[in-house]
């Protein structure tokens, strides 16, 4: 199952489907990094609204994505973590430390807009 990546201006948006396997996640990681380079994107939004389980592997992959993208000079925002998923994540000790988060896609875009405005 491939994760679609949408290009909207300077931002790339990747939307997770439910039931992603480890292989899908690894594939997404490389695809995102490649496209950030190719389009000189300033930011990536990963929308995980549909994910009903975020285990240690998925969480680690998200952190790695954010880290690699920061090395390319761009910013990552994780949006759409469900309340129940967030509760399970913190029980597991998965807090996505150092990665920006927002309630949903709309909030994620608003966050980036404000940030870019300040940077200008």
């Amino acid at each position, binding site marked *: 199952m491939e994760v679609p990546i949408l290009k909207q201006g300077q931002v790339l948006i990747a939307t997770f489907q439910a*039931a*992603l*396997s*480890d*292989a899908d996640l690894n594939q997404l990681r490389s695809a995102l990094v490649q496209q950030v380079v190719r389009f000189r994107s300033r930011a990536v939004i990963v929308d995980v609204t549909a994910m*009903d*389980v*975020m*285990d*240690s*592997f998925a969480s*680690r992959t998200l952190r790695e994505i954010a880290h690699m993208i920061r090395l390319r000079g761009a910013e990552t925002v994780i949006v759409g973590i*469900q*309340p*129940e*998923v967030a*509760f*399970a*994540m913190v*029980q*597991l*000790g*998965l807090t996505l430390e150092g990665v920006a988060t927002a309630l949903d896609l709309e909030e994620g875009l608003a966050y980036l807009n404000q940030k870019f405005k300040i940077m200008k």
Partner: protein
Amino acid sequence: MSRVEIRVTISSDQDIVLARQKGRSLALELGFSSGDATLIATAISELARNIVSYAGNGQILLRDIQNSTRVGISVTASDDGPGIPNISQALRDGFSTSGSLGLGLPGVRRLMDEFEINSKPGQGTKVGVKKWRP
């Protein structure tokens, strides 16, 4: 006595997804809240992942359980892999044997109500966890 028994063979990362989906639907069937079902599915995901990462293959057994006052779900993850040499160390937060990812066992323990582990080097690992419906 269990009425439901679901066995999922775990040998690849696809099976991890299958096991946690089956676990979630069984939990919901047994009347767990969707919040609890998420905790249970997450625990199953971690246990199945350990099988894939450390043993290669094994199985997850899902069952309904009941005592005199409550119903619950039992998840047993078993494999014939290398086993865990030092269990108490594996149950401490922050411990890991392969790279940055730990066994996640302390986390699984926090997600569930009861936790039991049997493992000897060379003889595989069996982790049993239970959660009771409040």
